[in-house]
């Protein structure tokens, strides 16, 4: 018997008892749908995260903050004039900062090439010409860090003009018709001195930046000139030691650092009283949560598939039973055992194919719908992020896996059919 004929016969056998077939396919469908959608979400999220990691320059940058010791069990801490972190009080106020001294101390750590404080300034608003005013926060742009650019260039720290990298969400509120048309334009920041006097600083928009998982919502990156002008105004009138405080520092690592060296650097900084995170660490927490959800859902999908396998076994056993005579007749007419086995195996594989195929298609459809809803809703500020992604290779491997499971489940009844004695069938009334 030719393979195409076997395929045809298996298909028509499958359609013979439609209800049973549909129920079996439904069971497979549920498993396939769950697994495909889960894999789709997890691959959408990981590919976004990978993109982010790639954009920010991955392992070469450490974000350093003072270590917050929330351990209150060991009683009051001794005052240490060198270490300005009064952990309990500052943690409560959320105002744990680094000083220039800290920056020098971090620089002594082996393996760190350069440390730059991340300077933050909080202008009152940003304004384009005489348009609407919007709240914004600014941070110093650190050389070497990369952003997902929607248009234009990164701010230039050596420029003598103030420059700013604008988050994409500000483009249309500020009255620009497109990302491209915003680049090169001048915007105005208003910022208050410590005495409450408002002053203006103008800056050129060097580029427009996509929102990302790590960027503060509403945060713009300023070049050296802009941030120093802003902080100069903001700290005017304050004592020097209050002025030079930074929320965090960004450390550039020596190139070619291995994982164990990286760990050593982190441990070294930890013993000095700082918490150091790579971009991967910062994202890692999000990834862990996603992974945990993925595993749970895949586990449920696997259980559904296990149940579906029993459905396949049952369906095919019934089919073999019902077709005793037919099998006997075909064997009497010279159909070989292996072809009979193949006939039933192909039927099992077809059940797997339809169940997984429809399941995968439905999952892709659902994924598209989720994407649409999510990107209009809670993912609005993360352009370039599709929640679900269905690489053809993953879909194909899921389908292949399910068809293999179906085949394996089908071997039991298929063997029974193959071994059936034609005489028994011919005597069977």
């Amino acid at each position, binding site marked *: *018997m*030719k393979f195409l004929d076997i395929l045809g*016969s298996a298909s028509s056998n499958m359609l013979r008892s439609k209800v049973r077939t549909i129920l079996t396919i439904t069971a497979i469908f549920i498993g396939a749908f769950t697994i495909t959608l889960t894999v789709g979400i997890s691959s959408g999220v990981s590919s976004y995260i990978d993109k982010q990691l790639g954009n920010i320059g991955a392992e070469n940058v450490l974000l350093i903050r003072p270590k917050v010791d929330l351990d209150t069990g060991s009683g009051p801490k001794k005052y240490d004039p060198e270490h300005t972190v009064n952990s309990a009080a500052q943690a409560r106020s959320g105002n744990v900062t680094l000083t220039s001294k800290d920056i020098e101390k971090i620089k002594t750590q082996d393996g760190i090439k350069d440390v730059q404080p991340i300077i933050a300034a909080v202008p009152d608003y940003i304004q384009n010409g005489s348009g609407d005013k919007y709240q914004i926060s600014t941070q110093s742009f650190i050389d070497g860090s990369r952003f997902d650019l929607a248009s234009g260039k990164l701010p230039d720290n050596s420029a003598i003009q103030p420059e700013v990298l604008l988050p994409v969400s500000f483009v249309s509120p500020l009255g620009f018709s497109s990302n491209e048309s915003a680049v090169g334009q001048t915007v105005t920041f208003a910022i208050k001195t410590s005495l409450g006097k408002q002053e203006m600083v103008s800056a050129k928009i060097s580029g427009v930046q996509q929102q990302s998982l790590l960027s503060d919502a509403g945060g713009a990156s300023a070049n050296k000139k802009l941030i120093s002008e802003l902080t100069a105004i903001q700290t005017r009138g304050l004592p020097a030691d209050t002025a030079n405080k930074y929320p965090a520092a960004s450390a550039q690592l020596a190139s070619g650092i291995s994982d164990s060296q990286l760990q050593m650097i982190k441990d070294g900084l930890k013993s000095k009283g700082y918490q150091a995170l790579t971009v991967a660490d910062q994202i890692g927490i999000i990834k862990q949560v996603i992974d945990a959800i993925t595993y749970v859902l895949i586990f449920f999908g696997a259980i559904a598939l296990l149940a579906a396998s029993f459905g396949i076994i049952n369906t095919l056993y019934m089919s073999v039973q019902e077709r005793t005579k037919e099998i006997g007749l075909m064997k*009497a*007419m*010279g*159909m*070989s055992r292996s072809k009979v086995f193949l006939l039933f195996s192909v039927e099992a594989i077809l059940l797997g194919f339809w169940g997984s195929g429809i399941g995968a298609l439905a999952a892709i459809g659902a994924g598209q719908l989720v994407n649409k809803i999510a990107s209009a809703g809670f993912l609005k500020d993360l352009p370039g992020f599709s929640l679900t992604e269905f690489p053809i290779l993953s879909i194909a491997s899921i389908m292949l896996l399910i068809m293999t499971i179906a085949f394996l489940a089908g071997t039991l009844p298929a063997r029974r059919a193959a071994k059936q004695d034609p005489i028994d069938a*011919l005597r069977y009334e």
Partner: protein
Amino acid sequence: MAKAIIGTEHLNKTYGKKDSLFIALKDINLDIKQGESIAIIGKSGSGKSTLMHLLALLDSPTSGEITVNGESSSRLSRRQKDKLRNKQFGFVFQQFFLNANNSVLDNVILPLKIAGKSRRERNRLGMKALEDVELADKANNKANDLSGGQKQRVVIARALINDPNIIFADEPTGNLDSVTGQKIEEMLFSLNKTKNITLIIVTHDADLAARCDRQIRIKDGQIEQETK
């Protein structure tokens, strides 16, 4: 003289073991020549069907030899036996064994499908075989919708389609009224005459048996009498 197409030597078939041992066939010696028509007759339970299944290589003997085309069946592999049945044997059964939901044509071409013939070839030969049994107009009907006599003609068309050397028929007229039975009988014997097909027919029908070249009467698993 035509050479023997199928024969047996000291053929025995037993079922069960020890206490429940049942001797179904005992020391059967037969020689059937190409183009002969043989009737196997005897009481119910005497072993006729058992003998026919052995001759058709559907079953293996407990001891003794079956030779097909001069070759011992014990030396044939399962695959060779499958091929032999597919290419050289045709089967007609009392209970028809048609796939009720398939079309008449699909039923007729089943042996060719198993043989791996192309669809075009299958359909061409299938229509020809259906014309031979005067059922070409029913080709696309469901097999289930035919009358008993029509069904048996479909079965004959199916048995003919691979152009066999031997047709095995177990009670081919058993389920039919005498007029229809007569028609099937004519068909089988005309094949025997025109195509020199060997007929091995198990039957209770005395008329049908009488038309055969030889009658082999089985009693309690043994050949009681051979008449010509």
